[in-house]
């Protein structure tokens, strides 16, 4: 019915390209005048100013980390056959149950159950709010990654970090607002996992690459000095200035001149940022840098702290290799060694610097894993993909630490208590950062789009 409502406003939107919705219309105009990344207030009082999203790529097993299932001890190696038109080839046919190869310990005053191979994380258990009720939709890695990162399984939509920086801007204009710290190998689905989608490109995630140039072409080719570059820049700006006199009403010209100066400053700012040599021994030890099992994840966690310390809004840190179809004990075991110290260290480090209260930490993968496994040439005790049960945890600003929320069934096949779809987690993250998903919208393709796609609910149980 509202086929023709507010045509003038809508037409205006096309001209402008960006808005936070009508509610923030006026503040938007001010924001545009100041620049799309300038800091601005969200929709309500934020519980956290920044977010560090620890992404466990491949699908960590909830059953073997934070959601123990003793029932599987009874069923271990028992075979069965599954036939279902809507089951994937992977989940169909002859299968067998797999018990967890790990022991669990209760940790913290809350008695949180954590796998024994995460002992350091267990020491900060009271900071964690473990959520067992989440459900995703896709059991393919790239589509599930897109879903977790952008709310849309098929990609092409803005990532959470893009929405957050679109809503809040950044506190440090000399650094990108949304930073991604990938492994050398990008996650499945590639850079679309941190795409700005239909939002303006200012909100695109910038990768700081773990090797080589942290940002592509951040440095000129070898042999070009900062001095010659400055001389070139001076000439460029002189020519641009006289060009601008000929087209005084073309605003784009000034913006492009400013971008060159900002880029020139970033060239010195970014190397300083990633140089961790100034950190003291104790800090390096906290993150397990150069300790056994170190695969670079610790350095990325440390970098994440340095970024939020400098006002970056959203940092995503990847740890890959969680796709343990076979030999779960070995492969998840190695992953535990890689993440235990860095994550515990990150939490402790943020806490002692007084940053934990204003930083939201999220630990999640794209889906959980199945209690059973396919035969595939023998019983190799692993687990397949499972979108109906998984485990995520939050810590930091606004989070109800030391709690377990929701539950899966007795074998961990699907969530049964406090069940929420993935979009509700997205809505909750935005909420903690002071943003209302329903109002954080962008008009594109004929409708106001939002991270949750069609709206969702805040998972109140996760919030302190």
């Amino acid at each position, binding site marked *: *019915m509202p*086929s023709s409502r507010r045509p003038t406003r809508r037409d205006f939107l096309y001209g402008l390209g960006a808005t936070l919705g009508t509610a923030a219309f006026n503040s938007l105009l001010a924001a545009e005048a100041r620049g799309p990344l300038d800091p601005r207030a969200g929709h309500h009082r934020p519980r956290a100013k920044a977010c560090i999203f620890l992404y466990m790529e491949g699908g960590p097993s909830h059953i073997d980390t934070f959601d123990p299932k003793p029932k599987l001890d009874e069923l271990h190696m028992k075979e069965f056959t599954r036939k279902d038109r*809507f089951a994937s080839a992977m989940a169909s046919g002859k299968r067998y149950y797999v018990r967890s190869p790990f022991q669990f310990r209760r940790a913290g005053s809350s008695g949180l159950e954590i796998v024994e191979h995460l002992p350091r994380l267990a020491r900060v258990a009271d900071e964690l709010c473990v959520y067992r009720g989440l459900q995703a939709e896709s059991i393919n*890695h*790239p589509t599930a990654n897109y879903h977790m990162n952008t709310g849309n399984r098929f990609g092409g939509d803005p990532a959470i970090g893009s929405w957050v920086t679109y809503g809040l801007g950044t506190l440090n204009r000399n650094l990108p607002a949304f930073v991604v710290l990938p492994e050398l190998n*990008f996650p499945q689905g590639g850079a679309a996992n941190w795409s700005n989608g239909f939002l303006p490109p200012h909100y695109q995630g910038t990768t700081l690459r773990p090797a080589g140039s942290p940002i*592509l072409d951040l440095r000129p080719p070898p042999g070009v000095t900062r001095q010659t570059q400055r001389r070139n820049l001076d*000439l460029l700006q002189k020519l641009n200035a006289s060009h601008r006199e000929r087209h005084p009403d073309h605003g784009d010209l000034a913006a492009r001149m400013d971008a060159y100066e900002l880029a020139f400053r970033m060239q010195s700012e970014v190397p300083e940022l990633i140089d961790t040599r100034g950190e003291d021994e104790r800090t390096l030890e906290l993150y397990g840098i150069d300790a056994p099992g170190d695969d670079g994840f610790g350095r990325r966690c440390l970098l994440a702290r340095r970024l939020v310390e400098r006002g970056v809004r959203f940092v995503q840190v990847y740890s890959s290799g969680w796709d343990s179809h076979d030999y779960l004990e070995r492969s998840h075991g*190695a992953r535990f060694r890689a993440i235990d110290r860095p994550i515990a260290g990150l939490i402790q480090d943020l806490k002692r610097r007084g940053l934990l209260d204003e930083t939201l930490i999220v630990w999640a993968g794209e889906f959980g894993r199945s209690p059973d496994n396919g035969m595939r040439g023998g019983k190799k005790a692993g687990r397949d993909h499972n979108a109906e049960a998984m485990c995520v945890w939050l810590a930091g600003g606004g989070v109800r630490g030391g709690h377990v929320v929701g539950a899966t069934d007795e074998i961990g096949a699907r969530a049964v208590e406090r069940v929420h779809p993935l979009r509700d987690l997205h809505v909750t993250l935005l909420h903690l950062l002071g943003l209302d998903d329903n109002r954080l919208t962008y008009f594109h393709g*004929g409708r106001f789009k939002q991270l949750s796609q069609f709206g969702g609910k805040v998972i109140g149980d996760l919030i302190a």
Partner: protein
Amino acid sequence: MRAIIGPAALTIWCLAFVAVCAGDQAEGEKPEAKQKREHASHARALQLLKQRCNVCHGDDADDVRGDLDLRTREGMLRGGETGPAIVPGDPEQSALFVAVTWRDPDLRMPPKENDRLSEAEVELIRRWIADGAPSVATPSGEAWTGPADGIPIATSGGLTPEWTDRRYAREAVWSFFPIARPRVPESDARHPVDAFIERRLAEKQLEPAPAADRVTLLRRATLDLTGLPPSPDEIEEFLGDESPDAFERVLDRLLASPRHGERMAQHWLDVVRYADTAGFSNDFERPHAWRYRDWVVRAFNIDLPFDRFVLEQIAGDEFPSADTDSVIATGYLRMGPWEHTGMSVKAVTRQQFLDDVTNSVGVTFLGHELRCARCHDHKFDPIPTRDYYSIQAIFAAAQFDEPETPFAEWEHTGRLDDVRRRVERLSSVDVLRGDPDEKNDALTRNKKKRKKYLDNAATRHLPRSFAVKTAKPEETHVLIGGALDTPADPVSPGVLTAVVDPAASAPAEVPGAARGRRLALARWIASADNTLTARVITNRVWQWHFGRGIVATPNNLGATGSRPTHPELLDWLASRLIDRNWSLKELHRLVMTSATYRRSGDHPEPERVAEVDPSNELRAWFPPRRLTAEELRDALLFSTGELSERMGGPGSFPEINWEAALQPRHVMGGIAPAYQPSTRPDERNRRTIYCFRIRTLADPMLEVLNRPGPDVSCERRDETTVTPQVFALFNGQFAHDRAIALARRLERSAEGLDARIELAFRLLFGRAPSAIEVELCREHVEEMTAYHRAHEPVKTTLPRKVTRQMIAEQSGEIFFWEETLPLMEEYVPDLKPWDVGPETRGLAELCLVLINSNELVHVY
């Protein structure tokens, strides 16, 4: 056909349609008329509450939000967690009213921007409460939805009678009205386009800008039609030609240039999402997709009538006597990203294809996002979900096919041997080497994947096409909520059924048999009676010239798109297109010969323009634009003299940022073979449209310059300013290589520094430098040359191998191996700083500055 109306749901307050706009006061109104009018207003308010509020407040008995049931007056009075919702007679005290105004940041309903009430709707609620919030029950009649003065539109029928019978604001469904054949307005203007444009300018008393100078006009037209700048000779020739039809002859030359098809094809490939790979985790190569790209280039070059262009892309294989090449065109139907793996459910991936192609046809040709009608009847447009699945039923008879398709005479097969040799070279050596002592499962796995990947690539040169074929159709059902497991009514194949004027439209007969379904759809789309098709393409062409269409949202001519700024002009141009045998070249010529196209980009009265028409809706001046990513790359290669004009064939591999090129990329559970550029400069330095397009590996330079990703249809390029653009153009290897190449060209073509500076300006900007500019540049080159005399260039070598690592699935441990890059052995690099002397390097510094200048990247 209008569906039979079922009994309206009992909770609806029904009312006969009253053709008085709610809220209007009529003087001397009779009491019955007043009562009827108020009645209508109240009924509409309640209808609104039902539609927008009850979904959370009453419809779902298990989940009544805020414990507030808005289904009945009693429920509203009783209220919820925060007290009563209404105080009859007092809107300001009624929480419901306050909520719908959105004035209180903590109480905003409906909460989503999409559902928010308009001012007129808020007024309806206010009035209903002010009038005492009466329950309105009326004798049954036609359900009342849509604006009071709206028009009904017959369709195949919605899921509910309310939807079927709703009314539409005329301006919202403008594109469903037959294309008018308006008279050209009486005016002094000599050109019909100007007559339409100047009428609106006169209404607003805005003077159009004067004509652009001739160099500006030539650069604008040349870039618009070919994507390349004019050469200094072409500028010279045009400036020297004082005949009145000089510009018309320039247009003839440009439209006849093979570069024209390349430029237009880029626009088209943006819309249809062209890539040489399939995307997602496997990112399988589509080794024959290039033939579709070449087909599109040729179609624009030979001015294939647009109706024929439509027919072949949708049903090129179903023509009674299919040409060998028309089957290639059906590659269009498969352009979307897609994959099927061992973890996919077959029925689900098939459905993904069907949904993708249904929406794509809607967006591409009809200017409507049909996907909005996938889960429900369209909220705003007269497109029932039944129509969505009827179109889908047409594609239910289409299956993927890569048939033998002999090369046509026009196809570019000259490089096929080279292409074959490249893959053979990549496959011939055992390039992956790991530590033999380790149980290196990742290595074995990657060897296998690599072979599979290359075996597929090795078919690029074969005469096959990336196409579809007709096959036994699956049965198609309406899927409630778009979900496969909830099939509802079966549907037969059909087309959009919304008809405003039954007399002016011919219904399409879509056969029930498998064969001919797509042909029927294509004929319906390509028909002169289709109200959408000609408007959609005409609008696109207008946008290709003016940066913004007459409708600013060319993929969306529906209610949620923007409205045409000059609807009569759009219709006049669209009907003219049809009359001239759908010739796009004619349309370009028509638009570009107008004074409107030739205007200056700078208006003499900027303050007046800012006040009357800040967004240039009236086209009083010509909007400047940025060069697109491809134009910038191509223009630089053109200016340095390096651009190869060779057309078509399987994609070339340009040199891209080396770190991005060697960045590990997941495919098929392993790491894809490293990206290796083509070995010869003439292969690398071809037009961007001929570069191999990998969905999961973008050329980072083009990406930061706003080249759109290939997964979503791009209706219009963004123009943004971000720092990575600076890194790419100021620091990137491509820009530095072009600077050296340009310096070398200047040295070879001109004697003396001043002449070289002048030539640089002519090549890049199309003009001579001012005396001050020459002086500035000369000083700079001299200073830089002195620097380079004192400093040797730092020589870098190209990589010969790359170390790979992966966390092995079976152990969780990291494995390393080495991949050698066999093509690098025969690699012929571009000219580098260490190949030239300090003078050239000094001059190249100036070239780099000019490459980065605002003047180069803008078109006025």
